[in-house]
């Protein structure tokens, strides 16, 4: 019954999306102007219906309704409740439903609150949003119906991949999806602006909070995903350049570029065509990334879970949406008038440099991700990993970070470098001193060395925009920028420390043996069996003492899940302010010794702390923008009210 209700809601939502597209398009013509009033309410109702469909699927998973194919394939009655819930989006159909739900809700929300744009642009935007949604609705309803029933209910479900049975991961995909799909708003705004030729500061100001919101979710999602991979995979690394990770990084790079170019457009009415282009590219990267992951053409180990028809369907959607948007762009970009001018030393130039470098990094990641596919076309099976990605992205990231230190200090339009030189002395000296000291004293690699030097300079440099300001009167968006840039410096410091100073020990030990790893002494105390709700495990207890201090207990596990049967290793972490001890329990050798893998990772937590600071900066800036928008609205209403009263 619930399944049928959900399906009905989904069909209705799809029908409303069609109405939204048709009404929106008609309303742009002189004869259809009467349709204009319909579009916004329809967009809101469509969002609500999509939400109802998604809620129905959640309910089915929570009840473990095994007559529904999707539930039978992905859930198990013995699973803890929270993972039953997470099972809703832990699969292809559910995640696609989440995708259209977020798209519908975002479109509905824009329809509800966005009043700054000219109405025709708004109508074109909502029609664009509906156009993209329709493709995904069709895909859901005809090629991956989440509500399909089994002819016969099964006795018991198949369960969820135990690796996914983790609280962090349970909420990771929705966070990322909010980011991916939130960018669809930027895409639709770009389409709307191109259709009505209204590319200007108003467009940038309207688009900016949406991009910012999506970008915050992406940042949090990527940071959380990286931490999940770090502690769950048991390999001690925090970024693997896996296609799935790249799929989330690419939209982030594009959205970061978009945020910066939108601020140029909003403040200075320059970079018009480029900003529109990025609006299209950012969401295109979301779709391309999702496609690459979902179609399975890249992750060959997943090859046989994939129905080739499904991949073709998504590819057709990509071709229509991205290809269509790019053709529209190419046709209209020539008529987008040139923006305001600026000189080479100006904040605009710094932001252009930032955009070029971010786009370059995006190109590097995209090429590296697609290269295996290209090589396969020529008959070679290859994989591309850190030896390519690390130096190549650093090549773009490091110069960009240098400019990040200078750019915020420059004036808009025209400036002289001599003016800001005084404020850059401290950061430059600090960076130079660290480079010289570390470069001469220890044999660390070039990239970590540059990273540490740059981080040392960036910390003071990112605070510089606050110098000479009254801190209480500094606008929130400036605070947001400072916090986010500081977060970049902190994350860079963590990354460089981790790659320069990590100590790894791989040993086979008996109970009672001591192992030294970095400043820590680790003693294996015991190995005991333990049981959880749907798993059993061998748990090692070890005591770790930092420089001979009070020992702290760590308990890594080797877990065996039974629905579906699979083993995972649960690493144990000891977090100190200056680093983490990372412990993994391996197998027992024939002679009774236990394999242990231990890492001492100085300041590794700074990576995720930095990531969260970047997101926090976004939140602060977003609050600042929303508050000032609200103030302006209220002021306008007051004026209108007064005029009305005077008029009487």
């Amino acid at each position, binding site marked *: 019954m619930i399944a049928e209700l959900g399906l009905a809601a989904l069909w209705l939502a799809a029908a409303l999306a069609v109405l939204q597209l048709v009404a929106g398009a008609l309303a742009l013509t002189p004869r259809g102007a009467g349709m204009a009033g319909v579009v916004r309410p329809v967009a809101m109702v469509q969002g609500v219906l999509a939400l109802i469909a998604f809620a129905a699927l959640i309910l089915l998973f929570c009840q473990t309704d095994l007559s529904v194919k999707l539930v039978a394939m992905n859930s198990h009655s013995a699973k803890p409740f929270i993972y039953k819930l997470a099972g809703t989006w832990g699969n292809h159909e559910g995640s696609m439903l989440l995708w259209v739900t977020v798209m519908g809700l975002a479109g509905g929300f824009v329809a509800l609150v966005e009043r700054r744009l000219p109405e025709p642009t708004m109508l074109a935007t909502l029609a664009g949003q509906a156009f993209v949604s329709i493709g995904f609705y069709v895909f859901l309803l005809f090629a991956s119906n989440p509500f399909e029933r089994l002819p016969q209910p099964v006795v018991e479900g198949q369960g969820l991949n135990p690796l996914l049975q983790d609280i962090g991961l349970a909420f990771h995909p929705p966070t990322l999806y909010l980011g991916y799909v939130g960018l669809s708003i930027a895409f639709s705004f770009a389409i709307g602006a191109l259709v009505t030729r209204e590319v200007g500061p108003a467009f940038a100001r309207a688009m900016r909070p949406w991009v910012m919101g999506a970008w915050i979710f992406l940042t949090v999602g990527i940071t959380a995903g990286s931490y999940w991979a770090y502690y769950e995979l048991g390999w001690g690394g925090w970024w693997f350049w896996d296609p799935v990770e790249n799929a989330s990084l690419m939209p982030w790079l594009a959205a970061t570029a978009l945020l910066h170019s939108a601020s140029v457009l909003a403040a200075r009415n320059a970079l018009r065509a480029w900003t529109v282009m990025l609006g299209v590219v950012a969401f295109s990267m979301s779709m391309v990334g999702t496609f690459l992951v979902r179609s399975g053409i890249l992750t060959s180990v997943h090859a046989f879970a994939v129905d080739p028809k499904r991949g073709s369907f998504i590819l057709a959607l990509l071709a229509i949406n991205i290809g269509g948007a790019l053709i529209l762009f190419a046709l209209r970009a020539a008529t987008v008038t040139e923006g305001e001018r600026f000189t080479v030393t100006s904040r605009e130039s710094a932001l252009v440099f930032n955009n070029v470098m971010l786009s370059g990094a995006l190109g590097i990641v995209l090429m590296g991700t697609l*290269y295996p596919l290209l090589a396969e076309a020529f008959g070679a099976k290859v994989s591309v990993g850190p030896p*390519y990605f690390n130096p190549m992205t650093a090549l773009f990231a490091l110069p960009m970070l240098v400019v990040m230190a200078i750019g915020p200090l420059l004036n808009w339009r*025209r400036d002289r470098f001599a003016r800001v030189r005084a404020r850059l002395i401290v950061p430059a000296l600090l960076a130079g001193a660290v480079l010289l000291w570390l470069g001469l004293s220890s044999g660390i690699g070039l990239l970590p060395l540059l990273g540490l030097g740059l981080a040392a300079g960036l910390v003071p440099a990112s605070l510089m925009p606050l110098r000479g300001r009254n801190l209480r009167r500094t606008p929130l968006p400036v605070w947001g920028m400072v916090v986010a840039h500081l977060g970049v410096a902190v994350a860079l410091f963590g990354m460089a420390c981790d790659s320069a100073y990590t100590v790894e020990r791989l*040993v*086979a030990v008996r109970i009672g043996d001591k192992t030294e790893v970095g400043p820590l002494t680790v003693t294996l105390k015991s190995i005991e069996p333990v049981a959880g709700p749907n798993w059993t495990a061998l748990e090692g207890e070890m005591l770790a003492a930092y420089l001979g201090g009070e020992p702290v207990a760590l308990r890594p596990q080797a877990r*065996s899940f039974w629905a*579906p*049967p699979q083993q995972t290793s649960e690493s144990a972490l000891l977090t100190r302010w200056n680093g983490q001890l990372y412990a993994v329990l391996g197998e027992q050798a024939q002679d009774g010794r236990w*394999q242990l893998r231990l890492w001492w990772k100085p300041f590794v937590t700074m990576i995720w702390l930095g990531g969260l600071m970047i997101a926090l900066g976004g939140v602060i800036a977003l609050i600042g923008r929303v508050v000032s928008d609200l103030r302006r609205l209220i002021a306008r209403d007051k004026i209108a009210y007064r005029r009305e009263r005077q008029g009487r």
Partner: protein
Amino acid sequence: MSAIKAKHQRLVLVLIALAALIGAGLLAAWALRNQASYFYVPSEFAAKPPELGRAVRLGGMVEGGSLKTEADGVTIRFVVGDGKARVPVTFKGIVPDLFKEGSGVVAEGKLGPNGTFVADNLLAKHDEKYVPREMKDMTAAQVKQTVAETK
């Protein structure tokens, strides 16, 4: 500053941006050719071994009876075969959960000087979605226990 000069500066900026992006593309193409790690099966590996020290991947079946653990308790040796050729592999580390004799494996690493493949990572071939891996990764005692429960 005159308008013409500003216009020129802008053109210069655009051209620099385009040049940077095209340069990036060429650089990436070059780096990819050099850094991508090729996939070998044992017969290809035997016929045309990769250069010493180049990162490659080797995929095949772990031969039955070939898995040995060294005295340090963490280094293992085994043979990867595809029915036509056999390649000896060493690996220092904790093996993945699905790694066992008779199962498929992809080893990432380099060819060592003595003809042994030195793996720095092992990936057991698996698929979460479709293959419910039964007792594949349990110990003999666990297998006996589950079989007892099943009967």
